[in-house]
């Protein structure tokens, strides 16, 4: 088969994996070598769906022995199949990289013919790139659940990031849609990778000679909307992954209907709106000091579709507001709807020199159409409606929604409207 055709098949097969980040690693080039990794990550293009292309994202093979209902590559699906040789993947990566099309490689694979042999093929490709081609660019590889730990561990010493996809948040959902996958099989390598990362970091503090292990951390992906799992379940899972397994990122992927299996819900379109809310909540967990249980509970297990999670939370906690912008702690400023990490930092810096009023805040990138109800500036309240949940909610809901794009990357424009592009970049790099 021609390489062009293989690339078509194996990139289309990989496109539902949403991880695109190339950040978090600052691998340096070596003399005579090719490539390095920029710690902040670099986007090289944006595809027609508006998503950043930073890595060559492909599958080693799309032949699969499993039959996960939500997946195009499942064994029972009739579609063209292809397999790359390790040489082909390495050649593509090197040639794309030399032309500055990409930041590196994101290599995943369907399971063929079993987890060990799949993992071996991935490892061979990575070894070829690092050892033969002296490639020092970014590499993200999937760890295959069920593969021998020695194979995964060796791969980990060569790559920048590893991920194991959880896909479905509960055992019941897995049983229903991915019967060959076991939750423990997925979580176990994640835990091992996590502890190996921590251990290696400790050792490297003592001696730089110790080879790095997955320096950009590990991530995972969850599919949203293919099962009845609530936002609360999903967010709690994400929270425990961040806190207990030290995951760098959890990616959420709205289920794109790819088959008409009776076990799957009939969706007209991917639930992008819900995905968007989960991303917002995810940032709140990682950078704004929120806990999952503050945002959702059993009585309210799903996010409000018209209100962003922070506004929703603030409305339910009006007793904590309004905050005086010239006095409030950084931690509390971050909890004000319309104030992002950047604008909170700007406020802290600027108010050392003079006290801030309404127009100063506007200039600093605070989204006043949301923040005004939760703040006072020099003691004055600018909310213009009575300070009650219903009236404020009415105002917030009345705001035009045109600006919101329900995709992962437009998230920041929602938090920090004044600086959409800059923040777009930071949302891609995962830096705030």
């Amino acid at each position: 088969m021609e390489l062009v055709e293989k690339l078509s098949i194996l990139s289309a097969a990989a496109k539902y994996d949403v991880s695109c980040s190339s950040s978090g690693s600052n691998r340096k080039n070596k003399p005579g070598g090719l490539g390095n990794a920029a710690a902040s990550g670099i986007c090289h293009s944006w595809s027609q769906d508006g998503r950043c292309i930073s890595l060559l994202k492909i599958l080693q093979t799309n032949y699969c022995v499993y039959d996960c209902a939500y997946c195009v590559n499942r064994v029972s699906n009739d579609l063209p199949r292809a397999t790359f040789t390790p040489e082909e993947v390495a050649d593509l990566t090197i040639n794309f990289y030399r032309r500055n099309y990409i930041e590196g490689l994101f290599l995943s694979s369907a399971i063929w013919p079993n987890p060990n042999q799949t993992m071996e093929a991935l490892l061979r490709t990575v070894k070829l790139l690092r050892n033969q081609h002296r490639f020092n660019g970014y590499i993200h590889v999937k760890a295959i659940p069920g593969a021998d730990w020695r194979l995964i561990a060796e791969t980990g010493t060569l790559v920048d990031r590893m991920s194991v996809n959880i896909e479905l948040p509960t055992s019941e959902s897995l049983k229903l849609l991915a019967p060959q996958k076991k939750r423990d099989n997925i979580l176990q390598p994640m835990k091992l990778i996590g502890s190996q990362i921590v251990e290696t970091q400790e050792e490297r503090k003592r001696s730089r000679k110790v080879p790095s292990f997955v320096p950009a951390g590990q991530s995972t992906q969850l599919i949203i909307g293919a099962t009845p799992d609530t936002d609360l379940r999903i967010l709690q899972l994400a929270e425990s992954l961040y806190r207990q397994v030290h995951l760098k990122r959890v990616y959420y992927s709205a289920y794109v209907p790819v088959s008409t299996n009776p076990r799957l819900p009939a969706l007209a379109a991917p639930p992008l709106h819900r995905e968007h809310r989960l991303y917002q909540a995810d940032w709140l967990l990682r950078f704004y000091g929120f806990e999952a249980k503050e945002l959702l509970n059993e009585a309210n297990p799903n996010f409000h579709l018209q209100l962003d999670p922070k506004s929703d939370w603030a409305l339910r906690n009006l007793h904590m507001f309004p905050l005086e912008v010239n006095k409030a702690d950084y931690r509390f400023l971050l909890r004000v709807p319309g104030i992002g990490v950047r604008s909170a930092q700007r406020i802290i810096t600027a108010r050392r020199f003079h006290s801030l009023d309404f127009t100063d805040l506007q200039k600093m990138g605070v989204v006043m159409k949301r923040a005004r109800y939760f703040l006072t500036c020099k003691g004055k309240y600018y909310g213009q409606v009575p300070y009650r949940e219903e009236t404020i909610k009415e105002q917030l809901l009345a705001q035009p929604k045109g600006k919101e794009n329900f995709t992962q990357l437009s998230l920041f424009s929602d938090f920090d409207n004044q600086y959409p592009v800059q923040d777009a970049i930071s949302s891609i790099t995962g830096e705030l």
Partner: protein
Amino acid sequence: MVIFLYDGSFEGLLTAIYEAYYRQPRPEQIMTQREYQPDLFSQPIIIESDPEKAGKVYRAIEQKISREALEHIYYVFLSELPGAGTLIFHYLQLGWRLGGDINGHLAVEPVRQVLKISQRVGLERHRMLGLLRFQKINGQGEGALYYAAFEPDYNILELIAPHFSRRLADQNWIIHDVKRKLAAFYNQKEWVIGELPAVGQLNWAENEAFYQELWQRYFERIAVEGRTNRKLQRQYMPVRYWRHLIEKPGKH
């Protein structure tokens, strides 16, 4: 109105700032000779670049204000925006008074302007690290050569060259700012900037067309149909940069 005119180099600008303190009458504006348009009321004074005076100002900024301030004004200088010289002058006037704290004064107009422009130049630099596209062309003898053309809004060539000299260290390359007829040349050891007029038809290396086709195919296939969002695509990747992209999003 007294206007100091400098030659367009950073050194020239710093010399003009030096003279603004030691020479009477004091200028109200500082601009490049190219930028200046004569009118009845202005009184232009041409300032000759002087490395020594420029060096003094440079070190004074570093020591009395901050390294960061120096970087910001350099980025503003590279923006080539009208009024950049005067803005830098006003910012530095404040800087001598406020010292290292200057960038905290976000409510002060020149500070905000400088930070905003510097941020925009920084953003374009960052974008170009990703959007620049090299094409492999046949070089003489041994060395194939990779060539990249671009037309940035700001004069960022020297801000991106170091990145590629570290990253694509083992290949020869040229990065060509077509708009300004400038290019960075790299020979696997060091890079220099020189003039380069428009280049004609490129003589591609053997496999170049093949990899371009592969990249175009990849670009098409990686988009998820149910999620098409051209507006977002254009927001992150402004159309004015598409001319030099191999994948040319508009074509699909």
